[in-house]
């Protein structure tokens, strides 16, 4: 994302006053886009490699010898320790370990978890769907909520409704998510006074149900964590949508559209919103990657069996292969989403390629 290499589409995005000049032939735009896309992809590849390197070296700094941790408190002979080290490949020189790790990572083999003695990839595929269910649901809800409310707030800029929405969004955005989660558990799961607890206190399922009952059961467990995530996350989408739309509303073409006698509502939906959504789209992609990584807290508070909890457990051993694998996953999620945003952004801009 180095700006020096910023290709035409982005410049077009930025240089609005030069709008007339950019409507070049289609083919040229396509070629420029391809070049732009290639640059972005190359950048992403470099970032991914950097993550691979960091994942390996950063966690090796964590104090703790995994073999000693695992065997602590039990009499272990020197040969047995050496055997463990051989088994985990810890007896090799660091650079060889690194080369081995890179080679395996490229083929999708992330090693074997020390503490669970299962392939890291298995542990991740066990937990990933749970995390995706939680973050995916929350993501859809807070994006829709943020865009809808942000549009409304901008449209009635400065009025009471706007103030309330903006104020609420800012306030919820300042609330620590774990604290909100705890309060929700106290009020809605445990129950306060005469209010009975309506939702489960934690976990993802009761276990044992089949079919529809199971779906309902999971949905029931999903409510509180999703509400927590939505509450702390929707504010950002709302604010970005709102300010983008405010910015858009000052533009000449909207005044023209209104002057032509188009209905307010139509102007908003046909003209202002699609344009203003662009920055939101960027944010949406980036949020998706980030939410996956940021879910540690909510998963901890609600005992959700996902990646966040797994990461935390892995860190305390330290279960190096598992930590590395998860770190790789979290960081690549963000990188991939960022790159997607970069690639999609110019395509969505209505001023490009028309």
């Amino acid at each position, binding site marked *: *994302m*180095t*700006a*020096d290499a*910023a290709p*035409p589409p*982005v*410049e*077009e*995005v*930025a*240089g609005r006053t*030069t709008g007339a*000049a950019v409507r070049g032939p289609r083919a040229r735009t396509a070629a*420029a886009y391809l070049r732009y896309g290639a640059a972005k992809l190359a950048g992403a590849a*470099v*970032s991914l490699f950097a*993550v691979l390197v960091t994942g390996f070296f950063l966690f090796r*700094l*964590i104090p703790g010898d995994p073999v000693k941790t695992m065997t602590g408190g039990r009499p272990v002979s020197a040969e047995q320790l050496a055997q463990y080290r051989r088994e985990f490949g810890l007896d090799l020189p660091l650079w060889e370990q690194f080369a081995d790790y890179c080679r395996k990572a490229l083929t999708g083999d992330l090693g074997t978890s020390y503490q669970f003695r299962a392939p890291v990839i298995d542990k991740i595929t066990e937990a990933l769907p749970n995390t995706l269910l939680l973050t995916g649901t929350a993501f859809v809800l807070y994006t829709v909520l943020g865009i809808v409310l942000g549009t409304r707030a901008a449209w009635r800029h400065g009025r009471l409704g706007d103030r309330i929405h903006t*104020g609420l969004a*800012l306030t919820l955005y*300042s*609330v*620590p998510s*774990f*604290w909100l989660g*705890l*309060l929700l*558990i*106290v009020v809605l799961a*445990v129950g306060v006074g005469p209010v009975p607890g309506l939702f489960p206190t934690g976990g993802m399922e009761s276990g044992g149900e089949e079919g529809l009952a199971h779906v309902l059961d999971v949905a029931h467990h999903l409510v509180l964590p999703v509400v927590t995530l939505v509450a702390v996350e929707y504010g*950002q989408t709302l604010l*970005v949508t*709102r*300010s*983008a739309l*405010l*910015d858009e509303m000052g533009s000449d073409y909207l005044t023209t559209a209104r002057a032509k006698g188009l209905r307010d509502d139509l102007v908003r939906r046909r003209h202002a919103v699609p344009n*203003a959504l*662009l*920055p939101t789209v*960027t*944010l949406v992609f*980036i949020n998706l990657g*980030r939410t996956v990584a*940021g879910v*540690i*807290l909510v998963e*901890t508070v609600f005992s959700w069996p996902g990646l966040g909890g797994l990461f*935390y457990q892995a*860190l*305390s051993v330290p279960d190096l292969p598992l930590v590395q694998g998860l*770190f790789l996953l*979290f*960081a690549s999620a*963000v*990188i991939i989403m*960022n790159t997607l945003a970069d690639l999609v*952004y110019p395509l969505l801009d209505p001023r490009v390629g028309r």
Partner: protein
Amino acid sequence: MTTGVTPPADARGADARGADVQGADARGADAQGADARGADARGADARGADAQNAAAQDASAQDAAAHAGPRRPAWQRRRRAAARFWRQYRTHRAGLAGLAALVLCALLALTAPLAVGSDVAGVTDAPGQPLAPPSGRFWLGTDRYGRDLLGLVVWGSRVSLLVGLLAAVLSVAIGAAVGITAGHFRGAYATVMMRVTDWFLVMPTLVLAVALTAVLPRSLGTVILAIGVTTWPTTARLVRAQTLAVEARPYIERARALGGGHAHVMTRHVLPNVMPLVLAQTTLMVSSSILTEATLAFLGLGDPTVVSWGGLLQDAREAGAVSAGDWWYLVPPGLAIAGVALAFTLCGRAVETVLNPRLGVAR
């Protein structure tokens, strides 16, 4: 400008490159997300670049005026600028409210040694019974050791504010240093620095901070460091864009021609121009630093012998306040965190709007 776009011939042309860059960067700022509280105001949109452009232009015009006109003492100019800033800031009600809350908090934190004293954190002669509900003697009840919670929340403000401020300053200082140098020295250095910045930008902040606190010994310094070194990239990108814009102005060219070295240009010309941005950025960053500090303390990664709001919440959870329904243990520290974070965000947005009037979002 590379291809495709005819450089506009108007006055804006001079800043166009900077603006383009900023456009891309502002998006990067959004990209940051986690810590980019108020990203909406800052980079609201890629196209907010014009707005920034306009602001930069204003500043440029003022600078030009200052240079061209009779030399006035710098302090007088600064005082006038400050007065103008304050006049505009005053019109933002939310910003004023945030500022008032902050002043109140700061007073509370500074007078805490007199008002409550460090004894409030002592466990051996804690005055009350453990986990007593609010009463006439203890307005907010007591904690698990029988200490006065009101006193602890007041006392905890010192650590939370201190860590928040220091971490934000550290983060913004790194960001500004990287941004200015990367903007000033182009070429390989800039490419490498921006690659590093990008790399930090995609790191999940919390994950990295957790890893760092696991690597280093547990102390306040570690927490400050962990927050500082993981949150600076947003600032670096913004500052770099601003630096590029500033350096594209003719008077920098003149300063260079007159023999101004790198250090001279960066400290005398670029730094004063990016200062407002840095100030706004710091204000916003404090808010997220306070939240991150609370988060790390809550995950048990803080210093357990130091009283902080996040630490109090962690204590409350460990003691079992959630299932026991001891709300007085749980609610005040969280409200304090949210309140201070909100106050800093409001201030930051107001500052940003003043410096960047076209956005007008915080009103």
